[in-house]
């Protein structure tokens, strides 16, 4: 299965679309958004976590795009006639998702620390990276659900819609303090908002609130069930 993980990570990193859309874009958007306005160092840290989260969400969902592509070209079917078990394939894919979110997280955090001069304690950097990494799991599951449940083309569109929609709603691009009250209330229940909160609370020097963990866990279960259902429906007969 490590072999499969290595193969898939290699394939993902060779995808120019992934490297540009999943790694370069969040970094550029971060640098652009934070340097156009005033010189608010607090916003630079918050936006850094938000954009790292946005990059992680995009990369996690991209895993589903890979699954849909491999279903379409018959590669998943080919794997079924090798000694690999379906469980190994699905787990390998989920692990691929959790590895390929790392470049985006690391790149945006590096841009914050090296270019924008965001200053945090060593433990904060480590904790933010770790929490963003773990917190991306629900999004990998959402991507897998899309990848197994939808066709190759609709997966691309669905992933893009999910990434953009959840990023904006969750306040990853613009702070939700700019939102009207009702939208802000909705935003608190989005997985993306709570995902970023894991990082921003650490940047503020305290542990994430229980509410954030509860909402994210609920989404983890929801997206996990979605992935299982989608896989049951099509994945076993690819």
């Amino acid at each position, binding site marked *: 299965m490590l072999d499969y993980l290595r193969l898939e990570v290699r394939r993902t990193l060779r995808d120019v679309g992934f490297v540009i859309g999943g790694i370069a874009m969040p970094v550029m958007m971060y640098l652009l958004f934070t340097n156009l306005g005033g010189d608010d160092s607090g916003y630079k840290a918050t936006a850094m976590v938000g954009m790292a989260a946005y990059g992680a969400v995009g990369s996690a969902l991209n895993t589903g795009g890979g699954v849909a592509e491999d279903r379409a*070209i018959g590669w998943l079917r080919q794997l079924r006639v090798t000694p690999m078990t379906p469980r190994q394939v699905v787990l390998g894919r989920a692990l691929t998702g959790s590895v390929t979110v790392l470049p985006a997280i690391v790149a945006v955090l590096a841009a914050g620390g090296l270019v924008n001069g965001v200053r945090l304690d060593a433990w904060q950097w480590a904790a933010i990276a770790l929490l963003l990494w773990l917190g991306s799991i629900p999004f990998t599951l959402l991507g897998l659900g899309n990848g197994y449940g939808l066709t190759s083309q609709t997966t691309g569109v669905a992933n893009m819609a999910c990434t953009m929609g959840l990023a904006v709603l969750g306040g990853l691009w613009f702070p939700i303090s700019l939102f009207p009250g009702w939208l802000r209330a909705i935003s608190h229940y989005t997985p993306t908002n709570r995902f970023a909160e894991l990082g921003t609370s650490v940047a503020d020097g305290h542990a994430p609130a229980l509410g954030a963990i509860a909402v994210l866990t609920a989404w983890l279960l929801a997206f996990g069930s979605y992935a299982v259902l989608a896989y049951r429906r099509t994945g076993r007969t690819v």
Partner: protein
Amino acid sequence: MSFAGAVKNFGAVRAVDGVDLEIGRGETVALLGRNGAGKSTTISLLLGLNAPDAGTVELFGGAPESAVRSGLVGAMLQKSRAVPRVTVGELVAFVARRYPKPMPVAQALELAGIGELAGRRVDRLSGGQTQRVRFAVALAGNPSLIVLDEPTAALDVEARHAFWQSMRAFARRGHTVLFSTHYLEEADAHADRIVVIDRGRIVADGTGEQLKPAAGGSLVSFDLAGRATEGLAQLPGVRSLEVRGDRALLRTDDSDATVRALADLDAIHGLEVTPASLDDAFLALTAPELEPELETV
């Protein structure tokens, strides 16, 4: 491997309709049929990709899935395309490592005739090269049984020739090979045994030589030279009569008796007697509605 009364439906379509078949180790068997005859479905049952709705399918004395899990089977599936963003060497090495006793990657590439392509990206190869990569993927694990679903579809003549050379080299190493095709020349030339499938049923099973009589013996043709065709169809041995221009074509079970009768009629002008070709046999076997003896059924 064995099939016993295997049935598989897709919705209202009965794709495989009661197939009984046994294949022993070391055989090279062709599964011959038209498009939509049930070849791919038979293969998907054999590989455990689909479960039969009725009957049983066994591979190496057990469920197909467990034979596949044990690494006894390699397959080249139909409709699979190039895997993007991976090199030939990486792909074949990855598949080989899934198997307990793979062959060295270099050897698999050599056998498939793509030794020089190891460093190339799979998605940047020609159609023929991609097909060979898929063949290398099928044999990389050094499996006892290799199943090839229409391996030469969409290959040009030269690539096809090269492919069969590779396949024979692999079969010579003692492996069992099952391939499907709708080219009967391929089945005749490259298999020890031909299993003809039509509308989900096996309609013939044997060597090319054994199948030829199914076409109805041989073909006797001669110039009519203005003669009427009445009575020709009733001559001894004749099963059917066809007139092409001024030439009569008699399909006969007993060409000697037919020719003697024609001589008595003084009808011998430009006479030719040709044995039934495998083409004829195939058409006769897979188009039962054209068979005279079945018309009354």
